[in-house]
């Protein structure tokens, strides 16, 4: 029974990976990656990593892929047309592709030699003995205890990394153009939420200038936004 589930999930994993690499449209690439991730979660379950499988489905296939879908919907059309345009220079593309397949094939051969040629006896086994229970290997309680005792520093570094990445993403994605000159009234809210620092409120209401000169600047910056007004 577990062999059947393994083969179904492994086929899903590899087919999803091939789909990500081969499909032309980035949107379908994202959907193939979702299929890959869900099948991978099944493999994790077979390896008794229950918590990691749940995290995989909830965080990866849920949150991260939603982010991807949004960004592909935002920029995807242009990306697709550029892909079509590049198909013209076909000889260079074909050469790159052959080279890439060679590189990938040699990488796969090397990995297989490294993994299967190790001479480790345990590789052919089914793994360490396992009895189901509330605090055995792979459950949430087990992972939580490890994270807060032996791997506390790794846990803290990971949380700090997430904070830095969130700040970096806000800085990257904020509206350029910064502080608008004609802004006159200052409210006490600006002490907590200074202007031009890329807060969410600025992103939502745009903070575009209302004077004529300001409208000209805005038209240069975002033609479609002014036309819509």
């Amino acid at each position: 029974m577990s062999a059947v589930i393994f083969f179904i999930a492994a086929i899903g994993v590899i087919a999803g990976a091939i789909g990500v690499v081969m499909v032309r449209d980035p949107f379908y690439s994202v959907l193939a990656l979702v299929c890959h991730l869900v099948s991978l979660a099944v493999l994790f379950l077979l390896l008794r990593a229950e918590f990691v499988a749940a995290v995989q489905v909830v965080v990866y296939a849920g949150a991260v892929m939603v982010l991807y879908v949004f960004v592909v919907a935002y920029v995807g059309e242009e990306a697709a047309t550029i892909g079509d345009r590049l198909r013209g220079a076909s000889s260079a593309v074909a050469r790159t592709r052959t080279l890439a397949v060679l590189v990938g094939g040699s990488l796969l051969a090397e990995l297989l030699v490294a993994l299967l040629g190790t001479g480790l006896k345990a590789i052919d086994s089914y793994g360490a003995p396992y009895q189901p229970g509330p605090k055995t290997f792979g459950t949430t309680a087990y992972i939580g205890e490890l994270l807060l005792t032996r791997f506390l520093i790794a846990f803290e570094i990971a949380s700090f990394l997430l904070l830095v990445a969130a700040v970096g993403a806000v800085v990257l994605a904020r509206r350029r153009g910064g502080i608008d000159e004609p802004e006159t009234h200052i409210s006490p809210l600006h002490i907590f939420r200074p202007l031009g620092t890329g807060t969410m409120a600025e992103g939502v209401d745009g903070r575009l200038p209302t004077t004529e000169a300001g409208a000209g600047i805005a038209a240069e910056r975002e033609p479609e936004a002014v036309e819509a007004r």
Partner: protein
Amino acid sequence: MSIAWYLVVSAIVFALGAVGVVTRRNPLVMLLCLELMLNGANLALIAFSRMWGNGDGQIFAIVVMTVAACEVCIGLGMIVAIYRQRLPIDADELRELHG
């Protein structure tokens, strides 16, 4: 299934991801292929964790997922910033940082 089968699957996924990173020119798809490579590594980590009956590999896998989430966050932020500057979304044409 013995552990070796899982390792074979992880090696195949890693190699496919490497091929994708080399062939595709769209940075979005390159990011997706990087995810594939990270997932191949994750599968190997969890398979070895099962082999020794030890949770360390699963913790490593969770840390790798965190790093992948950060990478996606920054990478997609950069792609959106590039799109706003009306630059081409193509890794070969973005040669501002060429030495």
